[in-house]
């Protein structure tokens, strides 16, 4: 099968997955107790106030009809209005999506080269002091819950040293370098969170292929260890490395709610958590859809890259 057909097939599957995710999210939020009216009113939810608000928000319609209305809107490029604020969701979501991608990109630019580089270096110098240090320090970094890493960074770099701001509030019209300055601490936090996973997988995957016969042959040819790692072991270890990088990149986009809360960063995660708490279903759906697109997109790219890296993966028709 040609690579283009492979890509097309994966993309089509991705779209199907998106539908499934939107349905699952919808069902999931339906299972949650309470609705937007009772969540909005909280402890002030008198039956009277609830009835008025439900009617106002159109919650008396059956759930599946509301889903279909929403879906119809999305297919026509309309994400609908938020139930809580009444404003178009797209207007609220887009700047936040850009913020989320900005932070994820910033963290990825630091984390991916650092992790893969250190991973390869650790594989080349297996057992050396540098290998062990990289391994232990990266493990220590991920063992701390991310909110705790954030607190420590804030205490040291914002409160004590005063080098960086503790708040990452970004807004329209902020200059690029101001944004970079504001998001440096969250980006470092995220880097610390994702580096260890990628580093260790790079190292182990590389070492795992080192015992393959063709690598032994390369050694026998008298090539240096770093040469063998880079040109013989690494290419064959790429598939798992690409997958781990994809998972972590997706995490940087989707899983950063806690960091957003601590640094007051206006990203999609916080919007989604607020929407779930308030049972603002259209907003939950929109955020879920965005997350799903990112996730499925990255996974699809990872699959395609893995296939490119190891052409035999594409020819599974053989069996």
């Amino acid at each position, binding site marked *: 099968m040609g690579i283009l057909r492979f890509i097309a097939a994966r993309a089509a599957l*991705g779209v199907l997955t998106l539908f499934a995710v939107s349905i*699952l999210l919808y069902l*999931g939020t339906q299972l949650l107790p309470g609705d937007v009216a009772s969540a909005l009113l909280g402890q002030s939810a008198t039956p009277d106030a609830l009835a008025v608000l439900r009617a106002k928000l159109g919650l008396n319609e059956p759930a599946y009809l509301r889903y279909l209305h929403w879906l119809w809107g999305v297919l026509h490029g309309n994400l609908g209005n938020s139930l809580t604020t009444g404003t178009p969701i797209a207007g609220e979501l887009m700047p936040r999506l850009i913020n989320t991608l900005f932070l994820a990109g910033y963290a990825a630019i630091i984390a991916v080269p650092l992790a893969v580089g250190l991973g390869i270096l650790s594989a080349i110098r297996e057992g050396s002091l540098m290998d062990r240090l990289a391994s232990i320090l990266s493990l220590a970094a*991920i063992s701390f*819950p991310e909110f705790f890493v954030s607190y420590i960074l804030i205490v040291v770099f914002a409160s004590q040293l005063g080098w960086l701001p503790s708040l990452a509030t970004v807004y329209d019209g902020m200059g690029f370098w101001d944004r970079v300055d504001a998001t440096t601490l969250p980006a470092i936090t995220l880097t610390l969170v994702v580096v260890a996973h990628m580093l260790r997988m790079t190292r182990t995957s590389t070492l795992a292929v080192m*015992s393959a016969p063709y690598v032994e042959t390369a050694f026998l040819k008298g090539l240096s260890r770093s040469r063998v790692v880079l040109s013989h072991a690494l290419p064959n270890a790429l598939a798992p490395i690409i*997958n781990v990088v994809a998972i972590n990149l997706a995490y940087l986009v989707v899983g950063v709610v806690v960091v957003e809360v601590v640094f007051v960063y206006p990203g999609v995660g916080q919007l989604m958590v607020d929407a*779930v708490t308030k049972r603002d279903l259209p907003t939950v759906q929109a955020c879920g859809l965005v997350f799903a697109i990112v996730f499925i997109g990255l996974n699809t790219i990872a699959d395609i890259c893995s296939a490119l890296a190891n052409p035999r993966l594409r020819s599974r028709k053989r069996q």
Partner: protein
Amino acid sequence: MKIAGRKVPFTAYIGGVIVVLALIMILFAPWIAPYPQTKIVGGVWDTPNPHDWLGTDSIGRDMLSRLIYGGRTSVSIALIATCLTMIIGVGLGFVAASTSKLVDNIISRVVDILLAMPILIFGLMVFAVLGTSIPIMIITISVLESTRVFRLARAVAMNITVMDYVQVARLRGEGIGWVIFREILPNALPPLVAEFGLRFCFTFLFIASLSFLGLGIQPPAADWGSMVHDNAQAIAFGGYAPLFPAGAIAIVTIGVNLVVDWLLSIHALPAGAGAEI
């Protein structure tokens, strides 16, 4: 590449000692802890002193005792959940990689769907519907985390199934089980063992994030993740109460991974041998 001798590196000893200490803590917590885990023995965030070796927590309970009892909860939950995670994730990953394309696609798509759901929000929904108890927590964590393991296991197994020796075994007419256990598993072990070490740590953190949402372990029982969360406030004022549970998570994680690293280095031989069948 050859194994650097049969000598056990000193880091493996350190890892081993940590793991053994953790096991002792799990088994004998009530006998080694100086105080019951819920007893209030002092003021709030007392600094370490002869009575409370590690000081006290946010409502005046002995930090050391809570650390020991908390270790019991955290380490055992993390251990069980991680094993379950690996079994589900690796099992499905191998099946997907070694059976038909249809099965692969079905499993992969289901996993994609689960992966695409933000993990905390998914957890929130599950707990809201099923309630919180330790078994439900372990199962939820395992299912969610196994989706992450699945992608890796599948990718690793895919690389192996296309190898000539696997194709040869298939042509010989070997069954799926034989291919998975005799061909794929031995060759895929290194990255999976490494993954185990990391998943173990992620499980701790997952429980900690659950405590962020008011889910997780029921008070007043201690667990390390919630202990970091409950005491985190002290850090802004130079208190070090949260560093103890955080340090404990780090030490156990590092210990387990040192042992994992050692296992990996031993394992290099059989993997090479497997390739020659």
